[in-house]
């Protein structure tokens, strides 16, 4: 029943009117900013960052207006299609560039533009002394434009354009300080791993085109009901591969940790709040496909479950503040994937957790940036300690984010994560027990490693007597205000959206009604278990890292910790499975090319040259030999024709 509703809703996209008809401005504003800053060159150095920030806020205002307009409409009319121009007029294949303004895309628009604009503001302070900050803001604007294109596209092909656009912006920003070879390598790594995922998405789009004859969402959701389950499963798995690449899900998770090489605002915006959640968006947007392919959906849920444990385990062992946050991001997106893989019962919660996570994780990244700012760019947790007295604002705002991600009521994370865990317990057979159990366990581990990070940073003894001695302090207002705003969001957003049922009813036109499903365990028990595990995890972290002394050098630990410190050998596995065979293959191909192809080409050229030199000798310059050539030619031709006859 729920899936039917979903199909109906997607069909009824009306032509855009009112504020939605200027939805193109959302993308155009930041795009103009990026163009002006990149093409204007050094002339825009002075006003560039402010212009970029202003345009980003402008985009937010447009988004807000569109949102309010949609809010004023009845639920079933909240999908508006804005056709911009005919993009691919290729015979029978017609594709328009069109924007789909509906509750799902609008949710993303608000998250992207609001958090994005806050981070623009924060960056004004954070990047103040960087000589290249104009380029930085240009890339940020480019990112915002691409991300908005990704979520507003009304077809998979246009989504792919945005998808690649954010990939490009991510690549450029990870390698922003590319004078450091390690950072440039990190950018390349992100790029390569994403290629694998993008290939999956591209092939998925091709299969969609072959199956449905078109690539726009409306046609796909219309046709999904009649397509064979095998085809839908194939498409679902291919789209999942794309989602895994962009959202750093198992097995394509390896790039996210290294991506922390980028400036911290980038980590907050792109690698925590927005871009990495594009995979979740893709899965939720493709709900008509996944509704018809239970196997693909299960794969999504399993990928989410594996990743959430993977990220959580890695997060426990890392000593680099940003890498812990990156592992946590991976893990939290695992929760979203898990929820998205549960089907109609989980779509809305996936987006709900995505929104709250966008706030608290971005807030914590900005807090981490603030800490690094005050600590001479030190990122090692073992070199922090006792910072709560020096950086009050950072401590409080980070603390709110910490409480939110732990899922302590009534902060945001409690509402969203709890919904996901409850939804994971819905179902039949082994699934609810495995998925629910993993989600529950993950909550406990999350509490442990996030508390570990929090206590190692802000509490305990100070461990930073080094030369030159840092003077930790709260940064100036451009940086603290965004942190405060995000902290408020971390604290209250869940309360506003969750218990009121606002998020589920808002998204219902897109993802279907949230059915009356009952978990295999009573809800109160799940909540109690979750809170209990969270309390245990946090308490253990307090004992180990708050009360006890933290060694300044990481002690030799158990095998599992050592494995987690190197990301559970993900790079070694990739290297052994793909890189080395790939290198051997490349060497083989180079060899074949040099010996075989080049040899053939060179040999042919030598043959022609040699033939030319020989033939040239016939050109003696004597008229008599020319005449003889002619005569020979005539006689030969005549003779040959005579023989043939």
């Amino acid at each position: 029943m729920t899936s039917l509703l979903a199909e109906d809703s997607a069909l009824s996209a009306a032509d855009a009117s009112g504020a939605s008809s200027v939805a193109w401005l959302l993308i155009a504003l930041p795009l103009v900013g990026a163009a002006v800053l990149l093409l204007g060159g050094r002339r825009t150095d002075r006003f560039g960052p402010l212009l970029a920030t202003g345009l980003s806020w402008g985009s937010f205002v447009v988004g807000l207006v569109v949102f309010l307009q949609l809010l004023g409409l009845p639920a079933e009319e909240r999908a508006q299609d804005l056709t911009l121009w005919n993009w691919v007029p290729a015979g029978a294949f017609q594709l328009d560039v069109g924007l789909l303004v509906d509750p799902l895309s609008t949710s993303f628009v608000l998250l992207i533009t609001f958090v994005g604009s806050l981070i623009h503001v924060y960056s004004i302070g954070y990047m103040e002394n960087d000589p290249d900050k104009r380029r930085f803001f240009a890339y940020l604007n480019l990112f915002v434009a691409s991300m908005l294109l990704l979520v507003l596209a009304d077809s998979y092909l246009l989504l792919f354009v945005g998808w690649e656009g954010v990939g490009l912006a991510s690549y450029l920003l990870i390698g922003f300080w590319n004078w450091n070879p390690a950072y440039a390598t990190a950018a390349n790594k992100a790029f390569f791993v994403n290629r694998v995922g993008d290939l999956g998405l591209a092939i998925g789009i091709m299969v969609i085109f072959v199956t449905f004859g078109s690539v726009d969402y409306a046609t796909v959701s219309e046709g999904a009901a009649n397509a064979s389950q095998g085809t839908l499963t194939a498409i679902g798995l291919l789209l999942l591969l794309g989602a895994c690449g962009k959202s750093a899900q198992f097995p394509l998770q390896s790039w996210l940790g290294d991506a922390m090489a980028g400036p911290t605002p980038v980590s907050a915006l792109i690698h925590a709040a927005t871009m990495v959640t594009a995979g979740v968006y893709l899965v939720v947007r493709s709900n008509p496909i996944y509704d018809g392919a239970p196997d693909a959906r299960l794969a999504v849920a399993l990928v989410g479950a594996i990743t959430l444990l993977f990220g959580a385990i890695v997060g426990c062992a890392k000593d680099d503040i940003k890498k812990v946050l990156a592992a946590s991001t991976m893990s939290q997106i695992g929760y979203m994937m898990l929820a998205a893989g549960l089907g109609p019962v989980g779509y809305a919660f996936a987006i709900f957790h995505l929104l709250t996570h966008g706030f608290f994780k971005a807030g914590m990244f900005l807090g981490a940036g603030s800490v690094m700012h005050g600590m001479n760019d030190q990122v090692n947790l073992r070199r922090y300690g006792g910072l709560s007295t020096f950086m009050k604002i950072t401590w409080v705002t980070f603390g709110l984010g910490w409480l939110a991600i732990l899922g302590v009521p009534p902060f945001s994370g409690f509402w969203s994560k709890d919904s996901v865990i409850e939804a994971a317990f819905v179902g039949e057979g082994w699934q609810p027990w495995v998925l629910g159990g993993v989600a529950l366990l993950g909550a406990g581990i999350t509490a442990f490693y996030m508390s570990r990070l929090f206590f190692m940073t802000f509490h305990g003894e100070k461990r930073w007597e080094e030369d030159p001695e840092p003077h930790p302090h709260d940064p100036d207002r451009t940086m603290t205000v965004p942190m405060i705003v995000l902290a408020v969001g971390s604290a209250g957003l869940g309360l506003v959206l969750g218990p009121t049922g606002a998020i589920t009813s808002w998204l219902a036109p897109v993802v279907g009604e949230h059915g009356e499903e009952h978990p295999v365990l009573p809800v109160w028990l799940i909540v109690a278990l979750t809170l209990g595990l969270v309390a245990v995890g946090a308490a253990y972290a307090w004992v180990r890292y708050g009360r006890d002394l933290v060694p300044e050098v990481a002690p030799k630990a158990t095998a599992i910790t050592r494995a987690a410190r190197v990301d559970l050998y993900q790079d070694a596995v990739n290297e052994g499975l793909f890189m080395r065979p790939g290198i051997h293959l490349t060497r083989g191909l180079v060899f074949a090319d040099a010996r075989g192809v080049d040899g053939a080409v060179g040999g042919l050229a030598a043959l022609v040259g040699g033939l030319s030199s020989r033939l040239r000798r016939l050109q003696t310059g004597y008229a008599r030999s020319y005449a003889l050539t002619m005569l020979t030619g005539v006689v030969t031709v005549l003779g040959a024709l005579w023989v043939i006859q």
Partner: protein
Amino acid sequence: MPAAEFQAVQVDYAAVAPMLIVAAGALVGVLVEAFAPRRSRHRIQVWLTTLTLLAAFVVLLLWSRESMTVTLGGSVVVDGVSLFLMGALLVLSALAVLVMAERFGGVGADAFTPMGSSTPGSAQEDTATRAGYATSEVFPLTLFAVLGMMVFVTANDLITMFVGLEVLSLPLYVMTGLARRRRLLSQEAALKYFLLGGFSSAFFLFGAALLYGYAGSGDLEAISTAISTASGDLDGLLVPGVVLTMVGLLFKIGAVPFHSWTPDVYQGAPTPVTGFMAACTKIAAFGALLRLAYVGVGANRWDWEMGLVVVAALTMVVGAVLSVTQTDVKRLLAYSSIAHAGFILVGVLAFSQAGIGGVLFYLVAYGFMTVAAFGIVAMVRQGGSEASHLSQWAGLGRRHPVVAGTFAFLLLAFAGIPLTSGFTAKYAAFAPAVASGTTGTVLVVIGVLASAVTAFVYIRLIVLMYFTDPTGDDVVALVPSIPSTVAITVGVLVTVVAGIIPGLALDLASSASEFLL
């Protein structure tokens, strides 16, 4: 026995008016040469020749086009093909004349010897040089050659065709020997051209005689009729007749193995004359070949077709392969013209109307390219004479970006790179050949491979111009005078336009691709 009553030959003057105008212009040119004062002769001749050619072209467009007919007692036919070819001849020869008029800004007189009749290195020649004489005879000679070419492409019987052949050849022999620099080379080339030309004319005549013996008439239509109604007694005359006649035409085309003269003559002749020969002689000879092969002896083409196929394949391969080892720009372009002749022969061998259209288009496209290319070659000089050795072209792109860039573009057109007319022309000539069957397809494959080889040669020259350090500082590209600039510009423009929007020219060529008979 009373003599048969004399019947006056009907002449459709509208149809032959362009030829009459060119003939009249040539005769007036001779008078100018005799009576006009030496100082103003050159200028008068340039104006006279250009205006004559343009007038003939205008008359052709406005008047002759209306009256497509067989006239002059059946010896001249004015149909779509001959009109198209005459028009092309007139325009291209006008451009070639503009290049011939180049006087190098007064720095070193024009490309022609001051006195054609003087012995190289003699005191007489010195005197003529010091006096600043100019061989303005070259202009009426050009007009006579153009007249011969026009007769050649309109000829409807073998005798008229032979007359046309000789009328176009004799002035060319003389013009070849008129180069100002390297006089001995020039005169040697002229003599070779003359000897071998005579040799090939003999083949043509012998073939024509055999065909006459076979059909009892030199008329192409009559030969065609005779083939389809033949009793079989004289069949032995037919194939040798066809082959020998064609040898005479293939010689002018420069097809292998009748090509040996081409590099020597192209190199020895004054560069503007080389451009004229490469563009116009090729058009004329192919026009005659098309008419002979399609109208005259097409009916028994199964008997002789294979011979022409082999010649086409050899022409492409030898032209392409030999161009690889050339060290002289003019010889390189000569071998390139041989290879192009092979490509055009592929179009001829399609034996379809589309094939004719393709050939016509190719001839025109190649003509414009080659006139412009030789116009540029004439401008690149070292110490007063042409710098035609490839080593002298090294690094030209650095000092003369415009000249080198234009030449590079023309080379790309020769290579048949898309967005130039060279590509569309190859396509137009090759597509009908593929459609014609297996043999055509094999020829096209050979043609494409040969194109690849020639592309290497052209691109190597581009690399030489742009990426090699110059050997000496004194190689310069002179600034061309207005007439040459016009000629080169038109050539390049046509190459661009016909490459980007080939539709117009292709339509014109295909609408002209029907023989009247």
